[in-house]
């Protein structure tokens, strides 16, 4: 029998037809939408006079531009308010389940999908957002799409896609103290570059991956897009099943047993061939941080910013432009640099485990005076747990400011902006110019490293801070 990868198995089961000389008509099981990339899709749908084919397959939440304070009040910013209101109207009109601001399951779309148990192994999942790759942690094919495709999913529950090439990244070995899944992915991207997986769908494997919790796996799959990959996925296992069991939308009773039996078949066959393979040793990975303006520009926290040796032409000029924006020089140590803000949140590291790890680290300590520290839970559920577990108290005692759920400073569409020229060490996923506000300088790191930075006021290795 033909040996298939996990990706092949899920993909092939969702092809309605293949267009000769063209893409596949690809069926979508679940569609997440938010306020920013959906309004034009709804508008065009109406212009065509077409309805939503399977509204029960779409779930909505406003997350990108919502304020993270006073969520019970009317949104002050007029344009944001209009987008959120438009989402409400559209969901109502087309019968789409909406987890609105203030409701029990409001939050960042990639945080609430798994939390509700909507995300399940073997599914195809899309959203007008590139970090849809997060859901791949459950052994699903999940990726971001453009607004035209959002419209296609509304109208036909399908999009037209060419099957990506297949890559496997195996990380074996054990992670050292202070090393988290965020460090694994920052390490991988630094190794293969911000464009290194373009055209591929990545399967993560190996003992350093399978030993991770679901939350930690999501962090890895989330950032697949930052190396150019269409998406990333991890074969489902007991950790996956245990996470899903009892969740609101997870199958129940007999259906559950049937589902698990099927999910257990979702793995790459021995001998299946990938177009590209990488192997890394988990023992080599240390706490990581970025110093430049794309997520591939990462080094060990204890490391040095690369020199321009061996670079030339536009490669070199782009590199220097990036360092210039960051206010860094080639060859410098990154440790000890002064920082102004820390941001814990986003669909990369805004889950309960992340908040627990920050709280455990800062317990009994206080943030440095020069630091403004924001914690933005990924969802209401996370916020609620953080309160119940006493984490909020610990964090507030340490001088952190807790905000309400949303994307917040990850993309700074709301008021949570880092001022121009200031340095922020963030648990989010993008350090692009202006990503956290015009002129803002972003360094990406794990929640633990961010906690260490908050306490010391400068770039620090969490292993050095006690």
């Amino acid at each position, binding site marked *: 029998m033909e040996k298939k990868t996990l990706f092949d198995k899920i993909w092939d089961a969702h092809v309605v037809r293949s267009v000769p000389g063209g893409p596949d008509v690809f069926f979508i099981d679940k569609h997440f939408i938010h306020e920013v990339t959906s309004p034009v899709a709804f508008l065009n749908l109406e*212009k065509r006079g077409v309805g939503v084919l399977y509204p029960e397959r779409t779930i909505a939440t406003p997350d990108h531009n919502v304020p993270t304070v006073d969520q019970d009040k009317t949104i002050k910013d007029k344009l944001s308010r209009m987008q959120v209101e438009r989402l409400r109207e559209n969901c109502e009109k087309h019968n789409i389940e909406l987890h609105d601001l203030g409701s029990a399951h409001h939050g960042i779309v990639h945080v609430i999908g798994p939390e509700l148990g909507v995300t399940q192994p073997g599914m195809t999942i899309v959203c007008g957002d590139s970090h849809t790759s997060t859901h791949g942690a459950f052994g699903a094919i999940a990726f971001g799409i453009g607004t035209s495709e959002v419209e296609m999913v509304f109208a036909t529950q399908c999009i037209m896609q060419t099957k990506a090439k297949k890559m496997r990244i195996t990380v074996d070995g054990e992670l050292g103290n202070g090393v988290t899944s965020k460090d694994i992915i920052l390490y991988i991207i630094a190794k293969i570059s911000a464009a290194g997986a373009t055209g591929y769908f990545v399967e993560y494997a190996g003992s350093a991956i399978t030993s991770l919790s679901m939350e930690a796996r999501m962090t890895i799959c989330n950032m697949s897009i930052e190396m150019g990959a269409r998406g990333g996925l991890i074969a489902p296992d007991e950790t996956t099943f245990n996470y899903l069991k009892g969740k609101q939308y997870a199958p129940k009773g007999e259906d559950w047993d049937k589902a698990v039996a099927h999910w257990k078949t979702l793995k790459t066959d021995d001998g299946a061939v990938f177009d590209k393979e990488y192997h890394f040793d988990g023992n080599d990975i240390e706490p990581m941080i970025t110093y430049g303006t794309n997520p591939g520009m990462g080094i060990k926290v204890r490391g040095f910013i690369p020199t321009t040796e061996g670079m030339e032409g536009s490669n070199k000029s782009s590199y220097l432009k990036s360092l210039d924006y960051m206010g860094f020089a080639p060859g410098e140590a990154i440790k000890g640099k002064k920082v102004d803000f820390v941001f814990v949140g986003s669909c990369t590291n805004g889950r309960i485990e992340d908040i627990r790890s920050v709280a455990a680290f800062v317990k009994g300590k206080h943030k440095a005076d020069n630091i403004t520290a924001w914690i933005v839970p990924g969802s209401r559920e996370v916020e609620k747990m953080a309160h119940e577990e006493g984490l909020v108290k610990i964090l507030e005692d340490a001088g952190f400011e807790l905000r309400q759920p949303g994307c917040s400073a990850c993309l700074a569409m709301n008021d949570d902006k880092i001022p121009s020229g200031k340095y922020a060490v963030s648990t989010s996923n993008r350090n692009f110019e202006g990503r956290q506000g015009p002129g803002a300088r972003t360094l990406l790191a794990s929640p633990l490293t961010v906690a260490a930075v908050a306490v010391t006021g400068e770039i620090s290795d969490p292993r050095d801070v006690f």
Partner: protein
Amino acid sequence: MAYDKFNILKSTVVPLSSENVDTDQIIPARFLKATEREGFGDNLFRDWRYDVEGNPKKDFVLNDPTYSGKILLAGKNFGSGSSREHAVWALYDYGFRCVVSSFFADIFKNNCLNIGVLPVTISPEFAEVLFKAVEENPKTEVEIDIDQQTITLLSTGQQESFDINSYKKENMKNGFDDIDYLLNIKDEIITFTEQKV
């Protein structure tokens, strides 16, 4: 939405050699608050084009009257990051019909093809030839022939062919988008869903 048909495009070129230009640069997040697809061209490359007071930055290529045209010649790994289709709307709205680069990010490329901006992938060597030619003579013209799948530097005749699948090619030539295709096979999709689920 349907777009203008794409056939042979002969135009001068706007060169932007920076590498890894992400969609946050093409259109920053704070300009994504519209609920309609209009006016994005004004904010194309907003923070590279204007300073905080809104004054044009002289050294940015879109503010340099020497360069104009319907073709954007871009550096390696163009369009990475966010999946926002608004980035392509902004390019189209500004007047670009074609982006040429030695390397495109995936989702960006898809988005381009869906709304009628042709992404043309060329070799790094030919990219260098084009950048040099435009630098030496900003009025130099490039011809993109979608039917023949060729891109030609008209001043020297240097040419390369590029890839595009036949389905997308027909779409571009006719101004069709995927949704027309999908709506035509809706019954087949419904049958598939019923049998699969």
